[in-house]
């Protein structure tokens, strides 16, 4: 395990674990509210932040966080208040963010497309100790929100209207989810890259769903999957000299396929059991019990 002796690999592995925890922890709420691709949009917007960081000679991680948070709040407001063509507004935001990033980084004296590429697809050797500090602080925030407010976020993502009637501050919670997702994008940016961030938010959740019946199990399995694939991907990237982001995402998809294959016989067995159970209690009922049902038209 010589890679553990190298300072940059220690940083990369630490960042990988934090990404493996945070990305699925936020992603599960996005998947629950059927906004699986929101992370992708935020990733695009964050590129402008990276470009700004280079241009202003400040930390690209904090700049990206700032811009991603602003972008995600805008996306949430468009979702909540937008009328019919919300998708077009989102498209403008995505591509505007991406184009802005490319333009700004080329304008800056220190930035180059090679630099940008490490933010787009992730890179191990470039995770600095300042990056690690930023990543750790942001990750702590994400874990605090996603675990501490899980009952509230679950309710809001499950049935927004019902959540409002329970008196929850739904608007604030929606914004909090958006901001947390934006923060996660920037946490994951150094390791998996902006273009593949969304995959790590969604694929471990999709994989975990194959086996689980409850939200709690899905959450735990998704985070476990996240940590496993980020560590495995980072290690592979060290030994094989392949980009870490792509490796991690392909591992995640591998886990998804594996769990799906495992789940198929399990689901069949469950369905058989459910069928057997249903027959014993529903069998005596006639199929069309009410004659009045027949004369509705």
């Amino acid at each position: 395990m010589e890679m553990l002796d190298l300072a940059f690999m220690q940083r990369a592995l630490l960042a990988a674990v934090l990404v493996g925890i945070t990305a699925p922890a936020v992603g599960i709420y996005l998947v629950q509210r059927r906004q699986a691709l929101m992370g992708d949009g935020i990733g695009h917007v964050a590129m402008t932040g990276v470009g700004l960081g280079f241009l202003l000679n400040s930390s690209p991680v904090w700049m990206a966080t700032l811009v991603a948070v602003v972008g995600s709040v805008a996306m949430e407001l468009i979702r909540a208040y937008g009328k019919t063509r919300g998708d077009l507004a989102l498209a403008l935001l995505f591509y505007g963010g991406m184009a802005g990033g490319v333009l700004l980084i080329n304008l800056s004296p220190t930035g180059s497309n090679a630099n940008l590429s490490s933010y787009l697809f992730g890179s191990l050797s470039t995770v600095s100790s300042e990056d690690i500090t930023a990543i750790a602080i942001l990750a702590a925030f994400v874990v605090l929100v996603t675990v501490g407010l899980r009952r509230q976020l679950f309710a809001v993502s499950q049935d927004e209207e019902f959540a409002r009637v329970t008196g929850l501050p739904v608007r604030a919670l929606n914004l909090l989810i958006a901001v947390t997702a934006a923060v996660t994008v920037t946490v994951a940016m150094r390791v998996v890259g902006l273009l593949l961030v969304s995959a790590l938010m969604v694929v471990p959740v999709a994989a975990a769903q194959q086996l689980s019946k409850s939200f709690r199990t899905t959450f735990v399995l998704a985070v476990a999957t996240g940590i496993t694939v980020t560590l495995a991907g980072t290690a592979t990237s060290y030994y094989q000299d392949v980009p870490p982001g792509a490796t991690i995402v392909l591992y995640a998809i591998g886990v998804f396929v594996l769990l799906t294959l495992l789940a198929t016989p399990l689901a069949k067995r469950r369905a058989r059991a459910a069928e057997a159970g249903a027959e014993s209690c529903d069998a005596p009922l006639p199929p069309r019990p009410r004659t009045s049902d027949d004369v509705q038209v």
Partner: protein
Amino acid sequence: MTARESVISVRGATATLGARPVLRGVDLTVHRGEVVALLGANGSGKSTAVRSVIGQVPLTGGRIELFGTEQKRFRDWARVGYVPQRTTAASGVPATIREVVASGRLSRRRFGWLTKADKAAVEAAIDLVGLSDRAKDSVSALSGGQHQRVLIARALASEPELLIMDEPMAGVDLASQEILASTLREQVAGGTSVLLVLHELGPLEPLIDRAVVLRDGCVVHDGPPPEAVGQHALPGHDHVHPHAAGEPLRTGLLT
């Protein structure tokens, strides 16, 4: 003020969806312990009426009071159990019946951990709709009627004094309808007031004290439930009047 305390009081409510007026001066009162059915054809404004009562549709005129408090200032949402019109209790991620029902407890315990009493209330609500043996199952494995029972259990989890239900019987099989009717009977016997949207009285008929019938956003009947002499006598079917020629035919089936 009437002799009996009112839990819901709507006076002259008007509301629009887009440019279309949906409520055109609706008066609606539910007294404590009363079961009121809101009836009418599709598009008559019954869903909008209940959604305005719970503050989900803004009024353009008129006023609403809940438990004697102006609705805009009403904060005591744990006293209200709401069952929205849904065909499913599932979302993008698996969740068990217990997890979904527990979210109904948020109105009692908004932040912080669930106590023993909270958990007991959740179990009791699941038991009331007869799903105790399935509490650990994923809601996505349930039938349509069972989904509705989960949604009702979620509303009951806060031990509300007032139940507001939007078409709780839509798409529900007979077995579930009977269970829902008996659940509701128990609640009413325990003093719960109920406002429910229905498009036919069905197995709930014996429970209903009063029926309010809406047509085109106006109250056209407020009194004893219309007698159900065959299907066509039901208020959900009065839309076939010849003078409604300008309107699309609403069958009352596509709820």
